[in-house]
């Protein structure tokens, strides 16, 4: 309980929640009122800095349009714009209704509960997952499509972690492909921005490859406008120039730290010692094939051989041959990037990599490869996004810029003080540590008929299969699951704004008999809900570990750290935190003890701090136990409230684990052959024809379906881009951030190239329609040079329509309205939604 005191004037440690960077903040409370938010100098992620979103959170806390009490729908009719005719009810009544629905469902078939939860991948997100398991449903992460679906699985496969990151402390040349890392985008945005600024001062070169002249592009040394969905071709061309024209590649790294030297048969599979033995390499000393890890050999990186009477070649030889299809001259008409620019960038990148050089850090000599290509959603949100991301990783590996100073890296492949280490396959390749990606088994497939809505077994090399929830809801017969969804529980997630066309979404959600949403506002999901529960603002919440070591903490901070988000003020009205309510529901339904048991496992609780199933704990008590279990009796909740962060500086092996670990990194994806077989078998058992073509040992560039849709008048592509002072749709209702967007020349507009607009008779500032096969949107045209001539650009997740968001309503343009969804419009490996869409543009007048 936070009791306002007279003449109180305090600064309180807490953590921002305006995006997933989760920066530490200091909140200034006077007489019980929050009056200022600043960055917390004690936080390794913010180092005392805070972006506009974090500072503006204050006004959002006191937003008068917040939901203040539970609401029950009285109008059975549902639809966009249909008044739910809300009736205010007590929490007791609301929980009675919800518990009754859930208890009946659990009795009938618990799998009929679908949970949509995100919580910025904080610890609470995983608590929600444990609750779902205790309830009995496998369906608990419909997170929407604003995600790096394809990215996470590609990173798990190649760097063994959840994210893509690069070392700004030493990097001298970075190519940002459809992302703005270091420009207030991506992981630990504040610390990355500061380090990027320092790197630029020392002469680091940044090349932004993006159809839109984004915030990052505007500040880069070079902006390379690219046709949407062709990033993979560009990257493969860079690889071709490096390995075939310039002969510039890191032989040492490729030979000994990857599987590039493994011998492969004509069918693409490894040549192995016996049927299930170790992959073989060619030993130049003995002129024979030997196990890859045999001592005292001289391994061939390139070449074709005959071993045991069978023709084979090294994986790297395959790569070299395959990329010959991507000469700059062949790729230029695909990407619209001139051939000489591709060749120049490749040359610059190769030279900057300083292959063969070392650097001494903390008394240890390490390979020094100060270059990186970084990728996130923009470049991969396409039909073949997995191939693009794997191409990027190949390029980073070709120059050896992998987990070494200056290069690409994942996050926290090695845990604090060896708390976790990467796994290793029988082929000697890296797998995610169990603590990070327990079920990311990308070498070992289970040919089992899917049971969850996400159809995991049909997408074995993926992390999040949100679009499959939607397709299964739209048509329950599509995959013939033995149950249907009766209850949809939405926890702080706007499925209407952050998915595909809202008309499709509304019809999908309407199919669910009972929808409950935890919302701060009567938003677009609430409009379709049966029950709305008032959600606490983050400044009213208690959350331990809002920034998880396993998923959202960049090594850029130089630390491992654990933080506490503590409430600054009491919740407004009757608002409660969704996770607290789930605990109460578990108690009412009689599975709280089992839920505690799962949390004991999930949190690795040690005695005497394990939760006792026979007892009842407050959230404060549970977090206190978790903290003490992790750090000892001195570092409990009170300590965290007082100090904010517990942090441990990273050792050199934890910053740059590459040279210190045994497993190799895969540059050749032989496991894809096995995945292909598994998927085909599962699909066959389900009686389905299935596209398995993208399971390839070598990534390719393939055109998105949009390339076939380009018949007049659908002559342009539309893309979405991020501006630094908004995140997802939740920030749009903030009046200070709205004010910033109003004054920004691009945020609420539709960007169209000046020449293209002129050709269509469109004037700057006039209203235009943008129409795809799925839907159409209207907005103010912004004629600009800062966009590719074939592209229309729409920022953020704007264009809200809910009456309960009066600040956001009608502001900006809703990009997702233009997006269709179908099996043909998702990445067949990761399920990422293809947002490469053809549109026609016309004057509204």
């Amino acid at each position, binding site marked *: 309980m936070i009791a306002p005191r007279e003449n109180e004037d305090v600064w309180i440690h807490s953590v921002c929640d305006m995006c997933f960077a989760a920066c530490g903040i200091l909140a200034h409370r006077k007489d019980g009122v929050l009056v200022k938010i600043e960055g917390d100098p004690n936080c390794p992620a913010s180092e005392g800095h805070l972006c506009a979103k974090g500072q503006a959170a204050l006004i959002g806390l006191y937003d008068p349009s917040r939901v203040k009490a539970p609401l029950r729908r009285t109008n059975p009719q549902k639809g966009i714009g249909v008044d739910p005719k809300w009736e205010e009810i007590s929490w007791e009544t609301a929980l009675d209704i919800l518990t009754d629905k859930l208890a009946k469902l659990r009795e009938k*078939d*618990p*799998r009929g509960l679908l949970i949509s*939860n*995100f*919580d910025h*991948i904080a610890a609470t*997100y*995983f608590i929600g*997952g444990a609750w*779902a*398991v*205790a309830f*009995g*449903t*496998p369906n*608990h*992460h419909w*997170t929407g499509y604003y*995600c*790096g*679906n394809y990215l*996470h699985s590609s990173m798990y496969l190649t760097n063994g972690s*959840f994210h893509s990151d690069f070392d700004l402390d030493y990097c001298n040349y970075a190519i940002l492909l459809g992302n703005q890392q270091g420009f207030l985008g991506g992981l630990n945005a504040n610390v990355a921005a500061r380090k990027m600024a320092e790197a630029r001062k020392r002469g680091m070169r940044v090349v932004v490859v993006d159809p839109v002249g984004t915030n990052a592009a505007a500040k880069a040394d070079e902006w390379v406008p690219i046709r949407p969905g062709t990033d993979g071709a560009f990257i493969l061309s860079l690889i071709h120039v490096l390995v075939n024209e310039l002969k510039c590649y890191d032989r040492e790294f490729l030979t000994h730290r990857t599987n590039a030297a493994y011998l492969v048969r004509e069918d693409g599979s490894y040549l192995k010692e016996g049927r299930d033995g170790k992959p073989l390499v060619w030993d130049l000393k003995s002129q024979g094939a030997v196990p890859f890890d045999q001592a005292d050999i001289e391994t061939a990186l390139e070449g074709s051989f005959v071993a045991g009477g069978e023709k084979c070649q090294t994986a790297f030889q395959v790569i070299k041959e395959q990329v010959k299809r991507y000469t700059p001259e062949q790729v230029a008409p695909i990407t619209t990037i001139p051939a000489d620019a591709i060749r120049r960038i490749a040359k610059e990148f190769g030279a900057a990599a300083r292959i063969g050089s070392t650097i001494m850090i903390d008394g240890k000599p390490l390979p020094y490869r100060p270059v990186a290509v970084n990728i996130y959603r923009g470049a991969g949100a396409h039909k073949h996004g997995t191939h693009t991301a794997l191409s990027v990783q190949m390029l980073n590996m070709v120059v050896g810029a992998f987990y070494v100073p200056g290069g690409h890296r994942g996050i926290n492949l090695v845990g604090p003080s060896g708390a976790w280490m990467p796994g290793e396959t029988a082929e000697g390749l890296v797998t995610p540590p*169990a603590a990070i*990606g*327990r*079920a*990311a*088994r990308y070498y*070992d497939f*289970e040919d*089992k008929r899917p*049971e*969850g809505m*996400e159809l*995991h077994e049909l997408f074995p090399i993926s*992390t*999040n299969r949100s679009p499959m929830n939607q397709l299964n809801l739209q048509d329950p017969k599509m995959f013939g699951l033995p149950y249907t969804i009766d209850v949809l529980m939405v926890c702080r997630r706007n499925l209407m704004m952050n998915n595909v066309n809202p008309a499709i979404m509304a019809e999908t959600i309407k199919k669910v008999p009972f929808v409950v949403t935890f919302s701060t506002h009567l938003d677009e999901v609430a409009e379709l809900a049966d029950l709305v529960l008032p959600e606490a603002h983050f400044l009213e919440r208690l959350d331990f570990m809002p920034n998880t070591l396993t*998923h959202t903490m960049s090594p850029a901070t130089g630390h491992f750290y654990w933080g506490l988000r503590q409430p600054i003020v009491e919740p407004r009205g009757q608002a409660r935190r969704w996770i607290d309510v789930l605990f109460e529901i578990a108690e009412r339904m009689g599975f709280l003890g*089992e839920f505690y*048991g*799962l949390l*004991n*496992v999930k949190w*690795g*609780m040690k005695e005497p701090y*394990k939760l006792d199933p026979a007892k009842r704990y407050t959230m404060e008590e549970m977090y206190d136990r978790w903290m003490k279990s992790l750090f000892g009796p001195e570092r409990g909740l009170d300590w965290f409230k007082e100090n904010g962060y517990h942090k441990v500086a990273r050792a050199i092996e934890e910053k740059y684990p590459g040279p210190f670990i045994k497993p190799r990194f895969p540059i050749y994806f032989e496991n894809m052959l096995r995945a292909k077989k598994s998927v085909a078998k599962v699909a066959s058992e389900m009686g389905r024809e299935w596209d398995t073509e993208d399971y390839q040992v070598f990534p390719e560039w393939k055109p998105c379906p949009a390339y076939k849709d380009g018949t007049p008048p659908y002559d342009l592509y539309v893309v979405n881009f991020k501006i630094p002072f908004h995140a997802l749709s939740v920030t749009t209702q903030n009046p200070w951030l709205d004010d910033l967007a109003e004054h920004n020349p691009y945020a609420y507009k539709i960007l169209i190239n000046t020449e293209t607009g002129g050709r269509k008779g469109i004037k700057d500032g006039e209203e235009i329609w943008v129409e795809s096969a799925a839907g159409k949107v209207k907005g103010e045209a912004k004629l600009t040079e800062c966009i590719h001539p074939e592209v229309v650009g729409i920022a953020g997740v704007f264009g809200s329509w809910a009456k309960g968001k009066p600040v956001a309503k009608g502001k900006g343009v809703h990009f997702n309205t233009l997006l269709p969804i179908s099996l043909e419009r998702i990445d067949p490996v990761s399920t990422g939604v293809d947002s490469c869409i053809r549109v026609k543009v016309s004057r509204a007048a």
Partner: protein
Amino acid sequence: MMEARIQVSYLGLVRNVIGCREEELEIAVGTTVGELLSRLAQRHGDPFRMSVFRESGELRSTALVCVNDCDITELDGFDTRLGSGEKISVVVGVYPPEGG
């Protein structure tokens, strides 16, 4: 041989298929988790077996077996020995919770 009583609880999808929430069993002291799981597979038949195990006999990626709320992979795996009063949980449905 000393007999021991243990409590086995089933969570998630395995509970749905075997229709059992928890049970008490008598085992010989020192029985391993692997031996117990074999006994449970015999007791509950194919629904249990298919929910928990792969054909190779390994645990499915979505299955978790715990002794006193500790994942057996943190202990001695299938070789973890059991004593009296211990609580064994068999959990199925731990899908990769990878958000974003």
